[in-house]
């Protein structure tokens, strides 16, 4: 159970590495830890200044032991539930999700309006402000905006979730790997990212559309192709800084395999910016979907998405304000709530907050 202080055992590649340069030669925290190595306080301190979870389970597992006790995720879940704001946000997201799935059916059952229902009476084919029959008003074709907002949520939420997932999986893995490997591999991998950044995206989408059948998969591919790039750069930046820290060097020195170092030690420590950036990805892909619709790849009329509704509403903002207010508020509500969940998740997953 007891283990020697990490600092002393670091076999650095570079003997002159300015390990603790920033804070002076003898940090009091470390001195304290060295002195009282077996006390519970020292254990807590270890984890604090280690900036990473060199916690028992990890060490046991690294040594071939059996994982026991609370995992990172279980622990996080516990803390997430305690965060009221995050729970509220989660409930709102859930409500919106259910509303987009069931809402259109309910509206159809009650009022008979669907997202593409254009009244046959010419007098009703115009933008009308909210009434009880149309709580969000109608668009310029006399269609119920509520129905369009709800159905639009389906594609927008799907796009948001899938692209964020892609960005998380590819971006984090790619960035962490590049950052950890460093040197030539890092250089090569990051230049690939640069090239993907630099090629004219619009041309790429036009060509993709010409070469492949238009489909949801292609939409995800087009969105996924670029949504992970910034994520990869952010993760790499964090990893570059983290990988020189003691606990990583320690893990390396005792022979923990590379992938385990990356996923068990480095990635959890980048989760703060990663989660924040992931929640920021959601609105940007939702709007990007509207741009792809313009090129013919996103949703096809008469189907709507929040992005296309917002774009349409923005054009008529001065004249039919309800066309932008309601889709806009729905979208903002979702993003805010998602964000509270994200912040809660960040706090819950924060390794340094675990015992705090």
């Amino acid at each position, binding site marked *: 159970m007891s283990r020697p202080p990490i600092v002393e055992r670091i076999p650095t590649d570079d003997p002159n590495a300015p390990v603790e340069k920033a804070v002076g030669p003898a940090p009091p925290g470390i001195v304290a830890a060295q002195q009282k190595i077996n006390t519970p306080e020292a254990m807590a301190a270890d984890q604090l200044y280690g900036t990473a979870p060199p916690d028992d389970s990890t060490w046991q597992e690294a040594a071939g032991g059996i994982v026991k006790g609370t995992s990172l995720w279980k622990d996080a879940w516990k803390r997430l539930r305690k965060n*009221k*704001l995050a729970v*509220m946000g989660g409930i709102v997201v859930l409500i919106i999700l259910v509303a987009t799935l069931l809402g259109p059916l309910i509206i159809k059952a009650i009022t008979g309006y669907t997202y*593409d229902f*254009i009244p*046959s009476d*010419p007098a009703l*084919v*115009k*933008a009308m*402000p*909210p*009434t009880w029959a149309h*709580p969000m*008003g109608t668009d*310029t*074709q006399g269609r119920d905006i509520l129905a369009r907002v709800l159905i639009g949520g389906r594609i927008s939420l799907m796009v948001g979730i899938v692209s964020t997932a892609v960005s998380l999986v590819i971006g984090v893995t790619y960035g962490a790997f590049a950052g950890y490997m460093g040197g030539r591999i890092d250089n090569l991998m990051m230049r690939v990212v640069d090239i993907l950044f630099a090629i004219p995206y619009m041309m790429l989408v*036009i060509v993709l*559309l*010409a070469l492949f059948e*238009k489909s949801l998969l292609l939409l995800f591919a087009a969105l996924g192709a670029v949504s992970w790039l910034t994520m990869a750069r952010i993760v790499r930046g964090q990893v570059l800084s983290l990988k020189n820290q003691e606990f990583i060097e320690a893990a390396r020195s005792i022979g923990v395999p590379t992938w385990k170092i990356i996923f068990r030690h480095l990635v959890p420590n980048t989760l703060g910016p990663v989660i924040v950036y992931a929640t920021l990805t959601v609105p940007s892909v939702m709007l990007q979907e509207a741009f792809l*619709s*313009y*090129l*013919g790849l996103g949703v*096809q*009329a*008469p189907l709507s998405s929040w992005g296309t509704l917002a774009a*349409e509403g923005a*054009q*008529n*903002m*001065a*004249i*039919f*304000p*309800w066309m*932008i*207010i309601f889709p*806009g*508020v729905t979208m*903002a*509500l979702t993003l*805010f709530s998602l964000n*509270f969940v994200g912040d809660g998740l960040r706090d819950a997953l924060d390794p340094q907050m675990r015992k705090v």
Partner: protein
Amino acid sequence: MRIKSFVRFYFSLGLAALLLTAAACSSSKQNSQYFGKNTPPEGQVLRYISGAEPETLDPHPMTGQPESRIAAALFDGLVEYDEKTVTPRPSLATSWDINSNGTVWTFHLRKDAKWTDGTPLTAHDFVYSWRRAVSPELAAPYASMMYESIKIDNAKAYGEKKAFVRDPATGRFLTEGDLERAGEHGPLTFTGAPPINYNQLPTQQAQTNTSTSPAPAQTSATTGGNSNDASVPKVALKDPYFLLPSDEEERNKILNGDPAKKTQPNHKLAHFLEGKEFVAATKENMGVRALDDYTFEVTLEAPTAFFHKIILHQFFRPVPRQAIEKYGDALWVKPENIVTSGAFKLTEWTPYEKIVVERNPLFWDNANTKLEKIIFPSIEELVTGMNMYKAGEIDATQSNEVPPPWRNQIKATSKDYVYGPYLQTEYVAINTNIKPLDNPKVRKALSMAINRQIITDQAPGREPLTAFTPKMDGYENAEGAGYNPEEARRLLAEAGFPGGKGFPEIEIVYNTSESTKQTMEFVQSMLKRELGIKVELTNQEWRVYLDNTRSDKMKFNGLARRGWIGDYVDPNTFLDLMTSASTNNGTDWKDKKYDAMLLAANAETDPQKRMKMLHDCEAYMISQQPIIPLYVGPSSLMRKPYVRNLEANLLDQHNWRGVYIDHNWRESEPAAPVALAPLLDTRAFPAIARLFYTGLR
């Protein structure tokens, strides 16, 4: 605590949105009669939105409408637009004569016309300009206007790099008629006279050519040569020369077959042409010539009644030879190099910002030019243009600058929204190659299922369209089948799809734009509702859409949105689009009878008779229903009350010479302001507020 702040937070978010829009919309009450500020600019200056950044100011490669309006200010034409009727009024040409069969037009030019560099503008400038317009080296996209829309003698041969075929033994040239008469086995006699060299004056030519003057004009239809259909009218035309590519390699591909494209060799032709000479067509063969410095003569292959109308187009306006030869085809239009002839001269061109033109003191009619300066800012977004107009930074706009969904509102509240008839049609082209749309009955059913009223109600001034051409003076439009859902269902059932059963799913492709999307959504929902046909909407980026709907590709499964804005005030600018030679009507509908009917109509010199014939053409075409006509769009512009002589006309082209700013406009205004409804329906607010409150409790 946390939850409370959460709720408070959402509430304030809602409130903020509400306040922002309320603040944003209160502006509408500022001016009840006009849209925004009404402060005229200092002096005689007009700030006019002509649309997006011009691609070029060279009238020949020019294809867009925004730049064509600027070109009209910079370049004078033989004739100039009348502001109200956009019919031709004499400008550089003081008068013109037409020969008895309508094929030779002689223009008498004014002698006081000058370029901005001081050199006189003569008939030679016209000869140079028209040759340049067609020249294969310049490769102007509109080149075919000179040989398809109007058929200038040998312009096609020159522009398309063709060669005539000469018999060295007789010195005679091969014509289409010769080949026809020769049949399968010959003998082939060459009867054509040598192509005229228009650099020589007619008198000299008469001397050199009398001995070999061609046999009098043959009677033969140029199109549908093999057709024996008695109903196809025959037109008296000059027997056209038989043409082959002047490039030897290209020519051999036709004669010997092209393995790359798997075309068969034409053995008969190869046999006939053995030992003959190929004479490449040159610019001198094109039927334009200067009889003297101030007399310009155009020779046409076929009489063309609307010739004087089409030459209003900027493509026919003269360009300065001196500047082009000095600076080259690209750079001569730079503000520091350009030489122009119009009422205004270019003084500033900052791309993507603005073009400034100022009064040209050398202009022959300078005394009657009223404006000192016109500023054309380049604005891509309609809403941006409207914003600038509202803020009083713009005095007038091009047609259709008002976003379509705004128009009913703006019309109700603002007196500065002006609209009138326009040569703009919206229609849906039917891909006549695919089943079951190859059946005219099905096509008719589709067209009868469209309730055009709903679409035309969306913006003021739209007129339902059931045939193809908009209303024009002296022309009686054909009428197609209008909205009749019962009849539509009956026709569809007759074609084998009762209630839409078994009808394959089709698509409508359209280019991405808010207003076309709206219209196509209407069409889709109507086809679904009335006929039970499933229609998918496919929006495409403009160039992709153009490419897919080309007649040699036709890569769309069903219907394609189309719009057309006429180039000149004559039904032909529309009817021409449906001929077999047209590459871009989106239907691939080819009908020899229609081609011949149109050709015959345009050769008719009696205007009334011609209009009747054109009407028959349109009626015949719409009886075949290759398109679903939708509506005729209005010309609608925003114009501040102090702008005078700028009208919403049929072409949205302007005669800038007469436009002026009336600084005393308020005196001529009606005294009592009319109470008009506010722009924004404020009934919306209680409902929105209610929604927020109920949502929060």
